[in-house]
């Protein structure tokens, strides 16, 4: 049996014909597939597929590999995996630093997206607690945010302990009458939000962006005193003279990292990945299209590639 277009269409992602546009920058690149890692959240899938499709346009042989967010560093170090498109300053910093310190993994710079992480409440809570989003209003409505287990203190649902974030310290330093409860995963985190939102019940929790939750649910971030580096290191800074962390959370970039061998093996791809940039707004719109409107992820990516030719052409120059 010969190869047929039919089968390929049927099999979709598994086998596809390489389109060779052979731009000069990538002529020296290896013909072996460059492996991009996919994780389990939509934004990351979109970022990676965007990069992958652009690399394909540049004539590279691209392969997507399913991998765990943290465990992938094992593969990146050995060269089993090649590129990871989203390492969040806020959640992946430790692993990234540990990996880059070995010299086998390289940081390829920012993706252009900024991770926002902060205490968040649904819009209907503003009626209960009109002083919001100012953080000083939180103590006045602590009771409104309480549950039987925490009353009379309010309940704040923090992220998994592995995310860090210093919420226990923050609550103490700002003398908030809130108990910090940690969710184990972000699925659990947003399950609680969904549940509370369905009932219009009070909830205060850790939300991050880019993510579908702040798009799907109407709400706001609590405004804490703005983050500065001194706030985290110098106890004297801020409203509490004896404790650090009396401010909001830092907003950090989302990084791209790669196996250090990428530079020599695929110099063209290496440059293109370094050039890759998208904004929070663009990404938010795409995530919403997939997760909320139920559109096909590959179609959304293809749309972006078709509509932004000048943007990605400049990456692969």
């Amino acid at each position: 049996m010969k190869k047929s277009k039919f089968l390929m269409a049927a099999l979709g992602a598994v086998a596809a014909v390489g389109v060779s546009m052979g731009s000069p920058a990538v002529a020296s690149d290896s013909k072996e597939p460059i492996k991009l890692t996919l994780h389990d959240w939509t934004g990351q899938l979109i970022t990676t597929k965007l990069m992958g499709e652009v690399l394909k346009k540049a004539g590279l042989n691209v392969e997507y590999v399913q991998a765990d967010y943290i465990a992938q560093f094992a593969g990146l170090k050995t060269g089993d995996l090649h590129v990871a498109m989203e390492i969040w300053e806020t959640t992946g910093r430790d692993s990234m630093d540990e990996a880059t310190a070995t010299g086998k993994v390289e940081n390829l710079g920012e993706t252009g997206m900024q991770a926002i992480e902060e205490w968040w409440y649904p819009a209907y809570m503003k009626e209960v607690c009109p002083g919001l989003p100012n953080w000083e209003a939180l103590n006045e409505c602590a009771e409104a945010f309480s549950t039987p287990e925490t009353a009379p203190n309010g309940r704040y649902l923090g992220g998994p302990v592995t995310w860090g974030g210093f919420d226990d310290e923050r609550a103490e330093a700002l003398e908030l009458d809130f108990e910090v409860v940690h969710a184990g995963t972000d699925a659990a985190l947003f399950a609680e939000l969904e549940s509370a939102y369905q009932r219009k019940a009070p909830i205060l929790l850790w939300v991050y962006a880019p993510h579908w939750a702040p798009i799907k649910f109407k709400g706001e971030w609590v405004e804490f005193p703005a983050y500065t580096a001194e706030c985290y290191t110098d106890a004297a800074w801020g409203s509490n003279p004896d404790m650090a962390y009396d401010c909001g959370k830092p907003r950090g970039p989302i990084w791209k990292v790669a196996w250090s061998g990428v530079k020599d093996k695929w110099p063209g791809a290496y440059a293109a990945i370094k050039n890759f940039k998208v904004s929070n707004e663009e990404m938010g719109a795409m995530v919403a299209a997939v997760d909320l409107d139920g559109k096909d992820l590959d179609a959304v990516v293809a749309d972006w590639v078709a509509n932004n030719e000048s943007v990605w052409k400049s990456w692969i120059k």
Partner: protein
Amino acid sequence: MGFDLRKIGPVAWFWIGAFAVSLVLAQYAKGWSKAMGAKWLMKVPRDLRIPMKKDVSVFMDWLVEGAHFGLFTFKDLTRGLSWLIEQPYLLVKSVLVTGWVEGLGDEAVQHLPPLTWIAVIAIVFAMGYYAKNWKLAALVGGCFAYLAIFGQWQSAMVTLASIAIAVPLGVTGGLLLGIAGYRWQWFNRLLQPILDLMQTVPIFAYLVPILFLFGFGPVSALVATVVYAMPPMVRITILALQGVSPEIREFGVMAGCTGRQMLWKVMVPSAARGLMVGVNQVIMLSLNMVIIASMIGAGGLGYDVLTSLRRLDIGGGLEAGVAIVVLAIALDRLSQAFADRAPPEHMELETRFIRRHPWMLTCVLIVLGTGIAGIFATPFQTYPSVMEITTGPFWEDLVKWINVTFFDQLEAAKTFMLVTFLVPVKRFLLGLPWPWVLVLVTIAGWQLGRFKLALLCFALTLFILVNGLWAKAMVTVYLCGVSVVIAGIIGIPIGILAAQNKQADRIVAAFIDTLQTLPSFVYLIPVVMLFRVGDFSAMIAVVLYALAPAVRYTAHGIRSIDPHLIEAGIVSGCTKRQLLWRIKLPLALPEIMLGINQTIMLALSMLVITALVGTRELGQEVYIALTKADTGRGIIAGVSVACIAIIADRLIAAGSLRAKRRLGLET
């Protein structure tokens, strides 16, 4: 049934006293230790700690980077193995999923399509008919049809491909290790603790080193699956070989068998029925691993479950989860049917049976026919997506409805449970001074198993102590303990019911099978929506998962009571109630205890999953270590879980044995 105080022996008095002292200690020990300036009583002092996690990390680094056998490194060896495993995997995958492909990445060119969905369904249908009858054929065919109709085909075939490799590997490895254990006592003794560790150390603990050694991708997932699924095969092999009757052995000797002939032509075939039980276990456990395997690159159904739930697409997660259950049911029933056929010789892949069968021809015709037709009309190759159905929105609406309508009632029930049961138990366990617990555990070991068991209990408890994981270990004991008690309260009556009523038995069996193979993630998210993050949600998940053995062993225990004893009871005029309480339950007690033992094991193995909803125990420690890629920390925490499991297992096994002896069931 009035209690007679004189019936309580000195041992029981000791434990009643110890419990009373514990209650007092839990309440006041903290205050006293502070007053006396002896804080070390509550908190393990730093001087006592031997932080082994650094050493473990260093050792693992050495293993991965430095270990050398002269010509090649340890890593070369594992990578070589990895390559060997990958070849058959790629072959199966190309048959089921990708087709015959040449080239790498997106330059690949497909020469041959994979088996069409119609062909796969026809093949399993034929296997079902061959193994048993039309009914089974319809069942397994229906299971696979579900996969196509609900749009799970592609993922299910990926999962099936990895199962098709993991199971033969696990079975062969288990068989060989089991034979070695049967032959050489010393090897058996060495093997037992390793098997315990393989079964009880959470997989997350050694995921990172496996990734280093076997590379990233499906092979690592396969290796992890085999490690987890193999131990029952080893144990069952040893038991089955020991169970071969001496007559058969003697017959082999008389016929002049050589050692090898004796083993492969006499022993293994005679033990085949028992061995098939092991095969069945390997299949089920491999399917249990699907979710975790998908986290490290196995893809397939596990990945679909994870992504759906991340989007809070409860319906999508459920459908993918049910696809795993359906796959498990099909494989389970098929393998059981083959086992009951008394298979000739030893196990091979099922295809061998087909080859000798007229159905074979039909299948080949369907494979070729639909394959060729598929080139001209896609619906023959891939199930048309317009005909897929989904029940997703229904489930979402259902959860939403329950949430909006019943939240207050659920909340009240939860608060009641927390206040009256969970929180007091937690306070009690965390309030005990560690030396007291150490002493009690050791005494329990002494009473049930004398010096050896006492030493084991002491050493394992000490291991947790010196690694500074005491508080987390106590929370682990609390969460597991509470869940096991509740699982027992629910499971044992269901087991009794199932043993006495055929109709109920069938329903219960189906329910239990589903609970055990449905990935816990699927129900964990709705549970969190209804009960919020915390111990209560974790407890529900653990109870649901660990319920099965309590039911099964109870039912089995009651069913296997010697009917003469029950008749004797009836003759001497027992009422139904007396029959149950005075005869059936006491006689089934050893089995029930084994069931509780298994419940504890399953509860412990769920800890890593419950850490995902925010419990603070050893499972969380393992999980944190994984996300920080801290090998040593993960392994130490994992081994601590294993320590708790082994202590519980040995104590209960010894207790069960004593009970059996007392009842005269075993000498």
